[in-house]
């Protein structure tokens, strides 16, 4: 898969400018097409992803203050709609819901078993405000769930029906490191429409470009004006400036090799002493895809259902093998998560599993910082004279 460029522009399609009314028209146009529009909105002290009935529900004027184990929404002095970075949820909450019924089975009086596959007729989503890191995260989950020998058809049905409106980042958070992971702040491939928010003396507007024929068709139907040089330059400079204001960085080494070479590092003991193995990072991570299965019956015992639900490699049962867990220590479970995310994901699915969104840092109750751990492993490897 292609790595998203950091600041280059997609020159393949004509761009245009939408104002706030244009954005509202976009939401209405998508709803008129029968789509469920999901986007960010300020609710319960956070920027959450929820169904939007109009663009007025976007978090105009709200920003976020992020740190390890810390998240606050803050009032901004301007009316920017997309000046927040990753929130507690990601698009996987919609594309790979927490619980999904896979099939049902019934046992007849003669003991015959009839199994019925679950029908896949999901909502036709439009996601408004997909950050470039999250756009990449969707592509990564596509590779896991659709790119192998076996396809997850339920995911495939939700995914192919989804219309993606990326919004480039001009306001990175203190926990962001998409530049290190090559996923932002400019939007990489995969969007139907990409927007860049511009807010200056010339007004509040969105530079828009289409990435697919459907995106072009939707854009063409909106009140708009041709892109002008001032808006283009402002958008370009804002994204470029964002690339220079990342709150975090990864060590600039081959992370896959670093993780493969540090399985016995002392640092794992250090982080294990802090890690609560609560699994918050795996729930918040936009690429973590692990699930488990649950088999249930009704009271008659003759109707059974198979459900899948999110699981976490921090759970002791995750690696259970006749008699006990393979990974019983917290050290081994944190190591599993980090080595998978940054290292063995490459072996399994051909890319890194980290997009640099920073959610795992923000939502860790004890503020464990994936970038700090990677730097520490790198330092330990250097001190031992190893590679990397």
């Amino acid at each position, binding site marked *: 898969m292609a790595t998203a460029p950091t600041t280059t522009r997609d020159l393949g399609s004509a761009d245009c400018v939408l104002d706030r009314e244009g954005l509202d028209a976009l939401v209405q146009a998508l709803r008129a097409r029968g789509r469920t529009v999901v986007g960010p909105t300020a609710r319960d002290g956070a920027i959450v992803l929820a169904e939007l009935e109009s663009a007025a529900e976007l978090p105009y004027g709200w920003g976020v203050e992020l740190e390890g184990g810390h998240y606050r929404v803050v009032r901004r002095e301007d009316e920017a709609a997309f000046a927040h970075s990753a929130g507690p949820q990601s698009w996987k909450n919609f594309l790979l819901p927490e619980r999904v019924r896979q099939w049902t089975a019934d046992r007849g009086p003669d003991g015959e*078993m009839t199994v019925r596959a679950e029908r896949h007729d999901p909502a036709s989503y439009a996601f408004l405000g997909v950050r470039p890191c999250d756009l990449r995260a969707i592509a990564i989950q596509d590779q896991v769930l659709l790119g192998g020998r*076996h396809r997850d058809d339920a995911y495939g049905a939700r995914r192919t029906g989804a219309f993606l409106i990326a919004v480039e980042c001009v306001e990175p958070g203190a926990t962001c490191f998409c530049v290190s992971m090559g996923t932002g702040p400019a939007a990489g491939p995969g969007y139907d429409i990409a927007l860049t928010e511009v807010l200056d003396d010339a007004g509040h507007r969105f530079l828009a470009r289409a990435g697919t024929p459907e995106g072009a068709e939707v854009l063409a139907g909106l009140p708009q004006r041709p892109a002008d040089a001032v808006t283009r330059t402002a958008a370009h400079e804002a994204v470029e400036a964002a690339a220079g204001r990342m709150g975090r960085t990864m060590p600039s080494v081959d992370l896959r090799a670093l993780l493969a070479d540090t399985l016995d590092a002392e640092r794992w003991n250090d982080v294990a002493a802090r890690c609560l193995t609560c699994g918050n990072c795996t729930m918040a991570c936009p690429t973590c895809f692990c699930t488990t299965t649950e088999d249930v019956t009704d009271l008659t015992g003759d109707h059974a259902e198979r459900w899948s639900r999110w699981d976490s490699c921090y759970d002791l049962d995750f690696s259970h093998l006749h008699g006990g867990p393979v990974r019983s220590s917290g050290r081994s479970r944190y190591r599993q998560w980090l080595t998978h995310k940054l290292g063995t994901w490459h072996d399994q699915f051909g890319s890194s599993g980290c997009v640099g969104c920073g959610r795992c840092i923000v939502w860790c109750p004890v503020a464990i910082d994936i970038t700090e751990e990677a730097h520490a492993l790198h330092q330990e490897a250097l001190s031992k004279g190893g590679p990397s």
Partner: protein
Amino acid sequence: MTAVPLPYRVVDTRPETADTVTIRLEPVHETLPSFAPGQFAMVYAFGVGEIPVSVAGILPDGGLLHTIRGVGAVSGALYALRPGATVGMRGPFGTSWDLPLAAGDDLLVVAGGIGLAPLRPLVLAALAAPQAHGRLNVLVGARSPEDLLYRDELDGWARPYRGVAVDRPSAGWKGRVGVVTTLLDEAPFTPAETTAFVCGPEVMIRATARELLHRGVRPDRVLVSLERNMRCATAHCGHCQLGPLLLCRDGPVVGYDRAEPLLAVREL
């Protein structure tokens, strides 16, 4: 075939040991694609759950044999099934014992406990094509004589060598006592031209592979069958990871050249 189970009927059950049974399954309607020795099915006990079980027999009519030790909730439910009962089956999944890789080689089949079950169809395939390879050696380890599987078949597997070692002999046991690797001295094979197929508890796999490498068998010619927790078998659930491997996809059969460094890391 891989997402939703197909109903299969239990047509025969044969007790192997006090806690282990071999069940013969036939498709009720549709048949799964054909299995290769070493591959596994996800076997569903109605309302209880689903476990990975390697095929112990691949029958020409589409039927399958599974040898099941009733130790957990699902395996216990499968163990208790009687002829006429229906189970759900998904598969085939995973890598197989690569018998063509061993063309011309001596074959060394080393089993520990119920690890003999996934090796049984390999032994039968090798017996059916004796000209394709050198000498067939079958080395079987078990806790006690009472824990031996396929007792009435074992004697027919000596082409030329079949050895059995038990940890705890019982009265009248005349065979070897000790771990399965003690049989290696008796088995006629040329290490540099041998392919080994090893399945059993992980500690037995490591000890056997170490001994084989020591005797000069190439690491990539020591094929081992590994096990981790499996939920989906379609490489989507993440449970069966062993470092870079997803064992439902990249295993269960793995060359020891890849397995050795992974098994050397505690709690990987």
